[in-house]
């Protein structure tokens, strides 16, 4: 049984190789390979789901063995990775049909799934790093093939993720040094001294993978530049799953994060900051995909906040939110893809009135949008409630950040839905019609899951997530019945109603759904911040680039000065000296003879002098 652990990595890799060598004429074969590989992987993970096993192969050396471990947590993540992998590959077959670079797209797609499986399964930190970095490479490739001008966005993603991965690499080295082993299931370090540094470094790796601030800024750029299936799979699902998986692993297993630690507070601050800032940016976006990408960032904030509380209820909420977010965010990106495929644009200024043209897409959008906004009884509501409760017990400020985030989330989705599906149909969208069945099926399945995970929330909570923590860490919490807090629920409902009223107010003020958030955009104080944000004052990448450019200018200036010192002083002196020496060689042998005699006298005098002193 444990040898089968290889297969989830091997199948997609082999299929990736296969797709790469299939000639262009046989497009259908390539699509079949992709679909069957992802389907096989999904069935395989279903089959392996209940197992708990380890498989170890010798690899680079004693502490660098190739060890894979399947247990309840990794099995859960594997199931999600491969489930999404299959649905989105189905979607891609229909969505990507007219695009270029298909060969590369499918290869990268499958390699991404293989490496994601590898990263989740590996029980050795070094092995995990190997897969983790491998993902970075395919990430670059996937963005770069998206469009002609995607190279910049790809480079940006590569650099940002690369820096974070470098931190993680150092963190892993430090962690291995402190623990004396790289085997994840054997590491258990108390959070003190150097291990705090190791934790922070690993945490940077994890949260940057998940796309938290301040490592987020490549995602909105990639959203515009790259293909929708990539966005729906990688930043919306895989990166969240991996990042949050690793964050949970380091806070629960590798290190013992407890509520008393300042690191817990740090995580919560990062989480709430990410929620608020990203959602504020989402609110003012005028592009379907870009708006969604900011939400992809903002939702990570909830997960980090939940896990950062270090309370069982918060961690369970964070993990539940992770899977819920993966479901609805992926589905939302897929709706964006359907709309884009039909109308040829994702620009909200152009879109409008698509409800009648694309009813199924609209319903899917509506279900997933209310889920993300946290409307009961959809899945997003329940995970957010758990996080609210944990956040409130750690401090009112964190709760407020989360609930205000919810307000803006709801507001921005009201605006988005209004702009895309309501209103008049513009000239360009006249010909739009419902998407093909292969694109609808994944959306419908995911939307159904939004409802199912909401109505029967105890199933994922009790069967999938609670076992991750284990009985003793749950402190008697049981999730077979949802622990509903009435006061918090009322507060949530009030906030959602306020968001709705705000939207109506905004529409009245501006006269259109698209500009429903303009009164917030133009609010005093916020206005200045927004203006600067749009000019990318807050993008760490751009700030870093400006900083680097200044540094380069300074370094160049210093270099010129050194060069002047060399050229003007040293080199001139040497050339002068060389000239003097050359001129002394007059080819006159009496002079030469004189030198030889002078040399002899010097040698002899020196030797005499030296023995005289003895």
């Amino acid at each position, binding site marked *: 049984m444990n040898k089968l652990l290889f297969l989830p990595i091997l199948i997609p890799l082999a299929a990736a190789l296969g797709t790469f060598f299939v000639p262009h004429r046989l497009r259908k074969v390539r699509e079949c390979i992709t679909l069957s590989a992802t389907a096989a992987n999904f069935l395989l993970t279903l089959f392996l789901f209940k197992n708990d096993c380890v498989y170890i192969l010798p690899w680079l050396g004693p502490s660098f063995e190739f060890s894979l471990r399947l247990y309840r947590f990794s099995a859960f993540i594997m199931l999600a990775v491969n489930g999404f992998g299959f649905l989105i590959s189905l979607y891609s077959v229909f969505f990507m049909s007219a695009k270029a670079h298909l060969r590369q797209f499918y290869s990268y797609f499958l390699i991404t799934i293989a490496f994601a499986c590898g990263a989740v399964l590996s029980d050795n930190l070094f092995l995990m790093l190997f897969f983790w970095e491998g993902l970075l490479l395919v990430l670059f490739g996937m963005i770069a093939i998206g469009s002609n001008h995607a190279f910049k966005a790809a480079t940006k993603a590569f650099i940002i993720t690369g820096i974070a991965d470098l931190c993680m690499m150092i963190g892993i080295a430090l962690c291995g040094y402190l623990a004396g082993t790289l085997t994840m299931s054997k590491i258990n370090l108390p959070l003190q001294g150097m291990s705090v540094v190791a934790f922070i470094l690993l945490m940077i790796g994890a949260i940057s993978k998940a796309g938290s601030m301040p490592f987020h800024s490549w995602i909105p750029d990639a959203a515009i530049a790259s293909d929708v299936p990539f966005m729906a799979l990688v930043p919306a699902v895989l990166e969240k799953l991996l990042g949050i998986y690793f964050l949970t692993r380091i806070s629960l297993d590798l290190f013992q994060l407890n509520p008393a630690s300042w690191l817990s507070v740090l995580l919560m601050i990062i989480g709430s900051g990410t929620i608020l800032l990203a959602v504020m940016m989402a609110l003012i976006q005028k592009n379907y995909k870009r708006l969604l990408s900011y939400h992809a960032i903002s939702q990570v904030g909830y997960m980090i906040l939940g896990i950062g509380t270090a309370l069982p209820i918060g961690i369970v909420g964070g993990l539940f939110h992770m899977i819920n977010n993966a479901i609805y965010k992926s589905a939302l990106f897929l709706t964006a893809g359907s709309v884009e495929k039909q109308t040829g644009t994702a620009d909200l200024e152009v879109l409008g009135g698509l409800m009648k043209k694309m009813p199924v897409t609209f319903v899917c959008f509506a279900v997933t949008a209310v889920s993300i906004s946290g409307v009961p009884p959809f899945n997003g509501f329940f995970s957010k409630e758990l996080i609210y409760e944990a956040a409130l017990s750690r401090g009112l400020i964190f709760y407020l950040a989360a609930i205000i985030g919810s307000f803006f989330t709801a507001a921005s989705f009201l605006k988005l839905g209004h702009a895309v599906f309501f209103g008049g149909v513009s000239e360009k969208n006249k010909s739009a019609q419902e998407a093909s069945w292969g694109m609808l099926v994944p959306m419908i399945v995911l939307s159904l899951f939004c409802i199912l995970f909401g109505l029967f929330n105890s199933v994922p909570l009790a069967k999938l997530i609670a076992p991750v923590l284990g009985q003793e860490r749950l402190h008697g919490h049981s999730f077979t019945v949802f622990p509903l807090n009435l006061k918090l629920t009322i507060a949530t409902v009030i906030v959602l109603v306020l968001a709705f009223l705000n939207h109506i107010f905004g529409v009245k003020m501006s006269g259109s759904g698209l500009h429903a958030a303009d009164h917030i955009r133009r609010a005093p104080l916020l206005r200045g911040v927004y203006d600067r944000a749009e000019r990318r004052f807050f993008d760490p990448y751009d700030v870093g680039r400006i900083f680097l450019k200044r540094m380069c200018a300074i370094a160049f200036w210093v270099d010129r000065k050194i060069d002047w010192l060399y050229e003007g002083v040293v080199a001139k002196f040497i050339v002068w000296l060389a000239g003097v020496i050359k001129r002394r060689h007059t*080819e006159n042998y009496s002079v030469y003879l004189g030198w030889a005699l002078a040399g002899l006298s010097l040698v002899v005098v020196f030797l005499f002098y030296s023995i005289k002193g003895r």
Partner: protein
Amino acid sequence: MLSLLIVVPFLSVIIFNLPFFNRGRGFIFWWSLLLFGAQAVLSFFLTIPSYATSFQLPGSMFKFGLMLDGLSILMLLCIGIVASLTLVVAASVHKDQRRKFNFINLLLFAVSGMNAVVLVADIFSLYVFIEITAVASYVLISFEKDLRAMSATFKYIVLSIVASVFMLLSIAILLLITGSTHFMAIHQALPRSEHTFLAMLAVGLFISGLSVKAGLVPFHAWLPDVYSHSSAAVSLFLAGIVSKILGVYALIRVVSFVFMPDASVDMVILSIGLLSIFIAALAALAQSDLKRMLAYSSISQVGYIMLGLGCATPLGMAAAAFHFFNHTIFKSLLFVNAAALELETGTTDMHRMGGLSKTMPVTGFTSVLASLSAAGVPPLAGFWSKLLIVIALWQTGHFAIAFAAILASVLTLSYLLAMQRMVFFGKLRQDLAHTHEAGFGLVLASIVLAFIVVAAGLFFPFILDVFILPVRFFVGG
């Protein structure tokens, strides 16, 4: 056995010049090539230490004997390599049969003398064979019979005679105060001598005399003229081996095996070495004549050998010997390239060359290799020997000198790269479009040498074990 190395070349000269041997003269090239090649190969198989039976003329106080140690073997190898290549180059430069024959005769004569220099065991024989070799090289330099070559020869003779006077005086003093001319006897008697002033005078005179032969600053001035005014093959032979054996080898031999260990003597050697490195490197920087520049570069590199010698440690000795070997190889290579360039372009003025690596790719490429090795760029051979020299200096506490030696490498690189740029890189000059690789012999010679440069760098541990480290052991007898 050892005496064959001296006798065979000498007898060859005589036999080939016998009146009834006219028909065999055409074979002198192949015979010499066989002889020199055999010497290079043989040096791998000679056992050390070995001695030839020594004999003493009745009623004479001189005892003539031969001995072979690690240093001598290395020298025999270098002589063999450079002599064979000189032969090949000379054969492709001198088309006239008669001139070629005369040239090879002189070459055999010089090789015989040099083999004797590295094998003899007493200072008087050392002096005699140095003079024999020098006479052969006087004729070689004036072989071209033009005015500049003549004047260069004259300069060389004048300074050589001065050096001979120094050395003879020194030998007389040594004989006076130690009663012997044998290396071992002097080595044992000199420290116990009461005449410290006389002993020091003898040491100073000998070092100065040999410095003239080796062309060390400030005794160097004859060398650039001689190298630049003699013909291509001759300058290769002189720069590659003759002045090295006559001057540098003899210095290594007398300073480390004959004279007493003495800190002030070491200081003199180090000062001469450092002075040579810097003055000659700066002078090389200012040259526009290719061969003249290479001549100064030779002086500068010999300075490095002196630094290794001046350390007076086994490692320093080994480093000096290794740099000797490397210098022989890469400087010969540069002179072979210079010969090819002179042959093709008809000039040695670097300002009148340019872009020649287009038409002479082998010459250009091997010359870059040699330059990099000279400047001490890893992993070429020159890097390792310079590294050993610097380590030896560091171990003996000469930190400032070690630093200066590293700094001087920059100068070396700068003048050699300037040469590369002027001669080989850039756009090919219009008037040089007709040039092409110069003859099979020159190309072969440069490829063989370039191969040794690379191989000695890559298989540095092997070279070190087989040839360099045995040098450390003191061999008397």
